[in-house]
C-alpha cells in the first residue's frame, strides 16, 4: 500500500491528446489527463458527450481512439496484460448472468481476479447477505447492480473505471459506494467514474467532456458557423 517515490512521480494512468469518434462523428478531442494514485475523477458532460465511449476506450474494450493512453508510463496496447490485471471496469451492462445466483456469478469474477476476499464477505458488504443462493433473475434492478458492485470488494485492481455506478442504488448504497471509492483512493488507487449525481468526495476532480467538444474549438477559431448547424442539435 505504500507508494515508492518513482510511482508517485509517474501517473498511474495518463491520457494524451485523446479523441474518440462514434459513427464518424467526433465526440471529443484533445483530452489530456494525468491520474496520480489517489485521484478520483468524475467525467461529466451531457448525454451523448462520449462518457461511455471514453470509459470503454480506457478499459480496453474499444481501441477506436486517437491519441495515447499510458498505464504506469507504458502505452496501452503494449501493456494490456499488466493493465488488465490491475483494472476493473463496471459498465452499463452489469455482466451478471441472470440464470445464476450472485455467489455463482462472483465465483467467476473471483477466479479471474484471484482475490483473497471470500464471496460471502463481498456479498455481505453490498447488503446482499441471504441472497447468495437466489437466482439473479429474482433480484431487483438495484440488487442486481449491487451484485456487480460486489466485484469492487473482490478486486485487487488499482484502477477502477465505473460507468454510472450509482444507477438504481438506494441512498444508503450510494453513501456506501462513496465510502468505498474514498477507501480505494486512500489505498493509492485511481477511480474514474461517470455519474449525474453530485458526489461529496473531497478529492474529487471533475472533467467535463463538453469542454473538449470539437465544435467548441472551431467556434473559437471560426465564427460559430458549425456549432449552429451541428453540435447543439445533437447535444441539446
Amino acid at each position, binding site marked *: 500500500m505504500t507508494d515508492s517515490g518513482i510511482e508517485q512521480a509517474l501517473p498511474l494512468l495518463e491520457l494524451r491528446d485523446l479523441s474518440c469518434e462514434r459513427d464518424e462523428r467526433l465526440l471529443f478531442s484533445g483530452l489530456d489527463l494525468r491520474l496520480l494514485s489517489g485521484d478520483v475523477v468524475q467525467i461529466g458532460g451531457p448525454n451523448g458527450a462520449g462518457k461511455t465511449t471514453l470509459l470503454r476506450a480506457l478499459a480496453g474494450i*474499444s481501441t477506436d481512439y486517437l491519441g495515447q493512453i499510458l498505464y504506469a508510463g507504458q502505452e496501452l496496447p503494449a501493456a494490456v496484460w499488466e493493465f*488488465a490485471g490491475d483494472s476493473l471496469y463496471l459498465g452499463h451492462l452489469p*455482466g*451478471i*448472468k441472470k*440464470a*445464476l445466483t450472485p455467489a455463482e456469478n462472483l465465483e467467476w469474477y473471483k*477466479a479471474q481476479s*484471484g482475490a483473497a476476499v471470500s464471496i460471502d464477505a463481498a456479498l455481505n458488504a453490498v447488503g446482499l447477505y441471504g441472497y447468495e443462493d437466489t437466482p439473479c433473475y429474482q433480484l431487483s434492478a438495484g440488487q442486481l447492480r449491487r451484485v456487480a458492485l460486489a466485484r469492487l470488494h473482490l478486486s485487487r485492481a488499482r484502477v477502477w473505471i465505473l460507468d454510472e455506478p450509482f444507477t438504481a442504488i438506494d441512498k444508503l448504497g450510494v453513501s456506501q459506494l462513496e465510502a468505498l471509492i474514498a477507501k480505494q483512493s486512500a*489505498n493509492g488507487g485511481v477511480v474514474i467514474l461517470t455519474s449525474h449525481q453530485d458526489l461529496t468526495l473531497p478529492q474529487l476532480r471533475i472533467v467535463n467532456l463538453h469542454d473538449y467538444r470539437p465544435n467548441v474549438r472551431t467556434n473559437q477559431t471560426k465564427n460559430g458557423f458549425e456549432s449552429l448547424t451541428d453540435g447543439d442539435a445533437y447535444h441539446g
Partner: protein
Amino acid sequence: MVDKVPSANLWGGFAASFRRDLLVAARHKAELTNPLVFFLIAVTLIPLGVSPEKSVLALLAPGIVWVMALLATLLSLDGLFRSDYDDGSLEQMLISPQSLYFTVMAKVLVHWLVSGLPVTLLAPLLGLMLSLPVNGYFPLLVSLALGTASMSLIGAVGAALTVSLRKGGLLLSLIVMPLYIPVLIFGASAVQTAVQGGEIGMQLAVLGAFLALAIVLAPIATVGALRISTNG
C-alpha cells in the same frame, strides 16, 4: 496492492468459465433440447417423406444423419455468445486478465458437450430408425464425435462475427456453411464407405486433422472476431 501481475492461473480461469457455462446451460434446459428435438424430428420425418423402404433408407441413412447433425449444430450456434453480449459478460471477458483464448475454448467445449455430444449419442438410435446397416454404427459415432467438435469450433468464429448484429442468423449460416462442407463430405463418406465394407482410416484421419486444426486456429479467429464485434 503492489503486485501487478495477474495471479490467477490459466487453468483456474478456464475451469471457472467452463463451470459457469455448464451451469448456465443446465439452467436453460429448453435451449439445450432444441437442437436435439430438431435432429430427432427431422430424421423421423425422412421415412415418411421419402420412402419407408428399408433398402432406400439404408442407402440414404449416412448422409441424412450427417446433414441433420450439421443443421442441428448450426441451429444451436446463435446463442453461443449472444447472452454474454447482452448482459455485458462478453466485455468483461475481453478485458479480464485471463487469456481470452482459453475462455473461448471453455465456452466452445461446453457448447459441444451440450449440443454436439448429445447429437452424436442420439445418432445410432436414429440410424436404427433409418435401418442403417450394422457396420455403419461405430463409424457414425466416431465421425460425428470428431465432426461435431470441429463444427462447434468453426461455428464459434461465425457466432463471434455476428454477435453484435440483431438479426445475424442468416448471415451466420452463410459464413459457417462453406466451412462445414468439407467436414460433411468426409464425415458422411466415412459412414458410407464403412457400410459398403471399405476402409475408413483415411476419412477419420482427415476429420481428426480438421479437428486438430480447428482447435488451434478457430479460437484465435474467434477471439479476433469478438474484439471486432465489441469494438463499437
